[in-house]
């Protein structure tokens, strides 16, 4: 059940992200990229097969049963940190584009040589 919900959430996130990337406003484009990279993180989590069991195995337990894969969560942590840095840089670059071109409209930014 959780996975069906997550699949729907993923679809909505990717759709929203793609929609925003196709906007002309630079800030919205950055939002779009951020949402898409967060969607990729949610997708990574679902790849670990969420089964509702924490991956903590007691001392001396021979058969831990079915647990959620902890590796993907480590991967997602790394991806989140990287995403944080790239988003920060994207926003700084957006500000610089605004300073130099006086506009955030992509059509006007590209029109100037």
């Amino acid at each position, binding site marked *: 059940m959780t996975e069906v919900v997550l699949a729907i959430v993923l679809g909505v996130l990717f759709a929203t992200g793609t929609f925003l990337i196709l906007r002309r406003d630079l800030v919205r484009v950055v939002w779009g990229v951020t949402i898409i990279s967060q969607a*990729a993180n949610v997708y990574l989590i679902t790849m670990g097969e969420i089964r509702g069991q924490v991956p903590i195995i007691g001392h001396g337990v021979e058969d831990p049963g079915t647990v959620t894969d902890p590796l993907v969560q480590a991967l997602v942590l790394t991806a989140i940190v990287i995403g944080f840095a790239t988003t920060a840089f994207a926003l700084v670059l957006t500000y*610089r*584009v605004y300073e130099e071109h006086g506009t955030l409209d992509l059509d006007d930014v590209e029109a100037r*040589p």
Partner: protein
Amino acid sequence: MTTDLVVAPILVALTTAVLTLLSRRWTRLQQAVSLLGITAYAVVVAALAARVFPGTTLAYQLGDWVAPFGISLVADPLSGFMLALTAVVSVPTLAYSVRSVDDRGQRLSYHALFHFMVAGVSGAFLTGDLFNLFVWFEVMLMASYVLVVYHGDEAATGSAFTYLVLNLVGSAVMLLGVGGLYAVTGTLNMADMARRLAHAQQWNVDPAPVVGIAALLFAVFALKAGIAPFQFWVPPAYEAAPTPVSAMLAGVMKKVGVYAIIRLYFTVLAPMDLALGYGFGTGAVGILGPALLVMAAASIGVGALGAIDGDTLEELLAYSSVSQIGFIVLPIAVGAAVPDVRVLAVAAALVYALNHALAKSGLFLLAGTIREATGTTRFHELGGLAGHTPVVATAFVVGAFALIGIPPLTGFFGKLLVFDVTVQAGAGPALGIALVGAVLTIAYLSRAWTRGFWGQPTPAVSHPRVDTTLLTASAALIAAIIVLGIAFDPVYSAALDAAHAAVEPRAYVDVVLGPDAWTEHPGSDTA
């Protein structure tokens, strides 16, 4: 102890990056540290290459975690070849930067970013873990985002924004691919993945989804390499970036995409046994052949036409590198479709990649030298450079000949091998594409020559002030083309060793995971 050398190139680059940040208050010292660091990098790479050639694979397990549970770094001849290429291009390019980048920029962060980029590239070549490959890609890209806007005028920030957004979307797609492969195969270690896909039944892996997921990763790598239809970020980014950065982007970073395609498809996915039907052959590689052939043809065409139409020297070179990347991946496409010529095909791609790295970086640096000397690289403001700057003109013509493929330069052997692969495979269309591409290359380079170097000198050209340091750094790369072309035998055998290592996953797997790991599986006696 013996395998510690594998991690050395990354460590040297990272250490140098930190040291250049610490010494930024003393410009001279910082430059010395930076140059010393890149020289140390070249020495370490040479030492590593001496160990891995002609056919040794070394594995280093980070933190001593046993593979496949930790992250493995693997140096095989393919990694060795790519690292050597990186070192040869980086040293002259950094020497050029010390002169051409303004003092404030150097003090601020240029050197650190340059070395972080080198570290990212080296990590991507050395890692044996798919997620770790993503991380190194990000390290490399993060440095390159900043370097592209370094001298930022208005146009540069606009182009850099496109470059940034495209690569961020690429990174997200790469995460999807990596996550998907992990979900299907249950591992991120490339060697482990290769053996699980090779013995899919014993490992209880369903290989069918891998074909589609691998296609996602292929699209990302094609984006990094700038293969059509993912080529449109290339010309604006190269024109926006400072000259030495363009040289690194065209010479080294593009090759990371090509390397990743070779590594993923030929080392990891090729052992997969799954009939695709519809005339596509076997496994994920079956799709790669036809797809890459079409993309190579498109790159060669689009790039060459753009180059013929280029207004400035840099624009011409940027479009030319789209066209040349087509030549690099063309033999890979043929090798994917025809397994019999795969080794030769990968060797051809590597030789061509080496030639392109040397020639294109050299030509970018020369274009920068001309810009410094005359103040312009627009063709309608140039003319008669051959008479006023004979050394620059000679170096340019050698670089151009290398791209065209005139003996005895490395470019001749690159083209020869590409043609040889297509003929041996009996791939008529590929041969046709290569021939048309070769003619177009002659067309755009001779146009550059006649417009920029011959004819009446323009006012800009009449009193050129050629900077000797800049010229020496650029000429060093051009000289390498001649030297490696004349002494081509070792280069060719190194490329063949690298190709063997790339297409024979068994040795790779056994080194990373331990002896006989290739045939082990759950339920087997040894497991």
